[in-house]
């Protein structure tokens, strides 16, 4: 073989190796998803060998660590639901309102200053929010409740719900802002030309057009709220409590996962494995929400032929 040929062979081999390395790297993301899915699924199945799946989904008593321990997750789902609703009740109006102001009313300079400020809210680590919720917000709520004759615990769902809502504001406002700006200006011009006020134009023309994107943003916010751990671990309660009262303490799926794993039980006990069962539920629900959210955004992009989202 001439040196030319052997060098060519060497080059081709190098090319193949590099290509292989690149593909291998890309496959890691698939492996990760599969890894998460299978590790959770595997251990969850181990759990369901020990405890009834049906009772897990529908049972209302969660009492680990005792003889005849029961693992009915409904109070945990309910607690998650209440706190999440509170969070969205804060995040959606404030996030959407902020997005509307920034995209429709604010001058470019104001926008340039305010958008980064909202981004800062997104960059604060959740453990910091959790500290703030537990040490500052929770006592405020206890005092406020007292002053109007009600009773709130220091682990009220309201405390963690409100702070979680604030944490989610940027998720909603950022995507809504992009979506609102993508609604073509010709629509607004048409509305103004017909003699509509700015407020009417936004409410009747712009927002309905932007609705798929706004719903998508809300679903993403919902997904984030469901998966949020630190704020609730630090500020919410530990005991599953089937209640609608936001002033009471209740616990969530994520808190229960943490508690089940840092306890003293053996790894193969139902107490520890229950974490994986809950993890499976969380995985499936957030996956579905994310898929719906992404497909809504995709449809919106197609409709308005937007590339900036």
């Amino acid at each position, binding site marked *: 073989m001439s040196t030319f040929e052997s060098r060519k062979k060497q080059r081709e081999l190098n090319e193949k190796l590099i290509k292989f390395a690149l593909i291998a790297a890309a496959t890691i993301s698939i492996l990760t998803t599969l890894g998460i899915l299978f590790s959770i699924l595997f251990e969850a199945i181990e759990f369901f060998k020990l405890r009834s799946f049906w009772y897990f989904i529908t049972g209302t008593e969660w009492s680990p660590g005792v003889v005849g321990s029961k693992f009915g997750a409904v109070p945990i789902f309910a607690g998650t639901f209440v706190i999440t609703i509170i969070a969205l009740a804060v995040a959606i109006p404030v996030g959407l309102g902020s997005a509307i102001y920034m995209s429709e009313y604010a001058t470019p300079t104001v926008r340039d200053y305010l958008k980064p400020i909202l981004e800062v809210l997104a960059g604060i680590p959740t453990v910091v929010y959790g500290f703030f919720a537990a040490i500052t917000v929770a006592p405020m709520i206890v005092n406020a409740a007292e002053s109007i004759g009600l009773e709130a615990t220091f682990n009220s769902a309201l405390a963690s719900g409100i702070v979680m809502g604030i944490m989610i504001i940027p998720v909603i406002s950022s995507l809504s802002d992009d979506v609102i700006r993508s609604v073509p200006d010709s*629509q607004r011009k048409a509305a103004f030309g*017909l003699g509509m006020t700015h407020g009417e134009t936004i409410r009747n023309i712009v927002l309905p057009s932007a609705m798929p994107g706004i719903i998508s943003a809300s679903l993403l916010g919902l997904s984030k709220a469901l998966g949020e751990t630190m704020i609730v671990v630090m500020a919410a309660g530990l005991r599953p409590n089937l209640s609608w009262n936001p002033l009471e303490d209740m616990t969530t799926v994520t808190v229960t996962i943490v508690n089940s794993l840092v306890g003293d039980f053996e790894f193969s006990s139902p107490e520890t494995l229950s974490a994986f069962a809950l993890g499976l539920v969380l995985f499936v629900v957030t996956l579905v929400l994310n898929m719906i959210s992404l497909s809504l955004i995709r449809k919106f992009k197609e409709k308005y032929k937007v590339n900036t989202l």
Partner: protein
Amino acid sequence: MKKNDNKVKIDVKDLNLWYGDNHALHGISAELYENKITALIGPSGCGKSTFLRCINRMNDLINIVKIDGQIVIDKKNIYDKDVDEVSVRKKIGMVFQQPNPFPKSIYDNVAYAPLKHGIVKKGKDCDELVETSLIKAGLWNEVKDKLNTPGTSLSGGQQQRLCIARTIAVKPEVILMDEPTSALDPISTEKIEALMLELKNDYTIITVTHNMQQAARVADYTAFFHLGKLIEYDETETIFVNPNNKKTEDYITGRFG
């Protein structure tokens, strides 16, 4: 201009406009006549669209715009402090170059503004208004069986007629048209030009057009703009056959454009 006994609908008095530091319209003065079609022509960037948008105060939406001068309609200067720009736009409708129906049904496209303005209430009155407007816009026969389908499902020409219908539904007195047919095919263009000739009986129409032949076909009066100044304004025939200004002649004959 020859003496005439046309009624003046819009009296523009020494209108100046600045985009920031850019002096875009220089001392425009003209009397635009009622129930006539007036075409605004001129090369790109001459200010004709900007001028058109002054008539319904659409330029007010742009922050850096400053306006000086008067536009008097029905004896009132629309730029007076006590005039609400929203109500100006109710009286003076606008049709845009790109058809822009709302993502609503055909019915709702036409009914939206009248309901909001309180011109009609929901129900029979509203249905009648929608039908009348679509008839006047020459679209009724094509859509009467599918009023609930989205406005965006129509063809380009139909969409533009829908936009005209919704503009008419608000019962304006003046209709401004900003190059209404430049995005349409020749057949749709023809339909809309015929429509304009019908509409002028009930409305005053001011239209910006890039297409001189269109101006010659439909307009009673034509105004030629160049670099932000109104160079010549006269009966269409005069402008095209016997213009007084050399610049006008150069533009008409295609020496620049």
